[in-house]
């Protein structure tokens, strides 16, 4: 079924032992690019609507809202090697909002983890691009998610593992605001503060819409900043589509010591496609062929 040898699916002790052979501890192969990030964002948005359109199902809204966050991470912040997904020194990126898998698939493909042509297989039988992120299927995916609220716990565990081994890599977890309805998110938030994991940065893609409506109507989360602050987190609030603000926040987060940082990124659901923006319908609906054509025109 799998076309690739997915490094991260190896069991831990195995990957540790084998890390000497397939993985390389030098910085050779670390991803870097001087490309204009705004252009990359536009390209990723095209990838996202195209793959979801071709799949005929998927979640465009929450993928499009996270584009600037994901691009800044993969292009400017994360230390990662597309040719060696299990590189031990890599920064860990945890996608907790697993339904936004298309934004990660687009980023991983653009970075070279697998050929871009694979994006056309999204959600199709035997594809390694599953409907929700799956660590056993896709090179570069750290966690299997899709059932909401589980990623921050995983990220706390990853951060603790790094700290136990005195590693300098950092853990980033991308959450949706809707999944902050889940109690586990707050169990994890409390424990991150209690354990003082300062090698962890959470980013909440606060696009203010969840499956059946606006978050303020479904289950109000505000004031979200005060909730995290009261639990002992360092909170940064930004415009999640302003590339400079996103980069500044991510860089600042890495310097905060003694407590975890959360970046509350105010975003627009469906950002970049006029008829998807702030439209609840496009939380989990694919564009039809005409809509796809229109979307690609807008993103040209």
């Amino acid at each position, binding site marked *: 079924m799998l076309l690739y040898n997915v490094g991260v699916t190896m069991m831990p*002790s195995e990957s540790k032992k084998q890390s000497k052979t397939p993985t390389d501890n030098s910085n050779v192969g670390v991803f870097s690019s001087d490309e204009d990030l705004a252009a990359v964002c536009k390209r990723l948005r095209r990838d996202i609507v195209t793959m979801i359109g071709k799949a005929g199902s998927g979640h465009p809204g929450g993928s499009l809202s996270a584009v600037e966050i994901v691009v800044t991470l993969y292009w400017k912040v994360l230390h990662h090697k597309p040719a060696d997904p299990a590189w031990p020194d890599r920064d860990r990126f945890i996608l907790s909002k697993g339904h936004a898998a298309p934004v990660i698939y687009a980023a991983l493909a653009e970075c070279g983890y697998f050929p871009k042509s694979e994006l056309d297989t999204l959600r199709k039988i035997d594809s390694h691009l599953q409907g929700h992120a799956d660590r056993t299927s896709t090179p570069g995916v750290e966690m299997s998610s899709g059932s909401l609220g589980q990623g921050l716990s*995983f990220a706390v*565990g990853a951060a*603790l593992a790094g700290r136990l081994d005195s590693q300098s890599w950092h853990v980033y977890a991308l959450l949706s605001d809707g999944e902050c309805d889940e*109690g586990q998110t707050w169990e994890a938030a409390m424990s991150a503060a209690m354990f003082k994991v300062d090698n962890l940065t959470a980013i909440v893609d606060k696009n203010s819409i969840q499956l059946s409506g606006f978050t303020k109507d479904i289950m109000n989360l505000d004031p979200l900043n005060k909730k995290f602050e009261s639990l002992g987190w360092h909170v940064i609030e930004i415009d999640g589509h302003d590339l400079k603000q996103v980069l500044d926040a991510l860089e600042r987060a890495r310097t905060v010591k003694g407590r975890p940082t959360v970046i509350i990124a105010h975003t627009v659901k469906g950002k970049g496609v006029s008829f998807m923006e702030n439209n609840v319908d496009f939380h989990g609906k694919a564009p039809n062929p005409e809509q796809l054509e229109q979307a690609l025109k807008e993103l040209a």
Partner: protein
Amino acid sequence: MAEEIAPREVYGKTLVELGRENPDIVVLDADLFPSTMTRYFKDAFPERFLEVGIAEQNMVGIACGLAANGKIPFASTFAVFGTSRCFDQIRVSVAQAKLNVKIVVTHSGLTVGEDGASHQALEDLALICSLPGFTVIVPADAVETAQAIRAVAAHKGPCYVRLVRGKLPVILDDSYRFEIGKAYTLRKGKDATIMAIGTMVAPALEATSMLANEGIDCRVLNMSTLKPIDEAAIIKAAQETGAIVTAEEHQEHGGLASTVSRVTAKHHPVPMVFVAVKDKFGMSGKPAELLEKYGLTAKDIAEAVKETLKRKV
């Protein structure tokens, strides 16, 4: 009378030995370390012990993040809280992701006693066995517990080990060698086979003495690895003894009875009777009283054997 030892006591001490041997062993608990006996590890390796509070979902999630990054996490709590309370986390974050997480629960079954139904896990094995890739072990005594804990630490992949609150008679000696996936013949016999797990193994042996007085010669298999089940041992028992009784401190649905029946139905059907909880919740009471009320005693096993023999052709 055999010496009685609480398996959870042995679990706690084995964890300390493993912790000394392997720096990647990390232990998590959800406000129950004085009961699960992870307290020994907490005292010996405080930096590798994580108290997560009463938050089992988060405990499982943290264990996954640790496992994905080279650690061997042992997450412990009571059986009810370590399974149904965080089942979706175990399903998606652990099992679907194929992570090397060890869930070791104590206080399973009716023998929790006075705490009553909310605390008596009788469906945990059904839940865990339903997840692809899980290794599920129910040790019969302290000797097997020590070896099973070492075996799951060495095994790569998700594991579930089910322990109880009380002391259990030691029935295996130091020459015993536990192996994942292998049933162990505790008594040879030709008329019927009793297959038992956990607390029901000692009563199964006791039942054979009662039956021997009536001229019935029973085989006893300790089926401590419930998943992957030892199909060969079951088929052999079915062929050679022609009648099977299963015995478990769990619902009839989804545990040993279901697992063994699936094997016999496919390969060699024989008359079977199941000594198990019959679609009921537990209640408060003394462990011995509860086992009697729910039909989980040596006498019940002996009666079950006689019933299968009536149906044997």
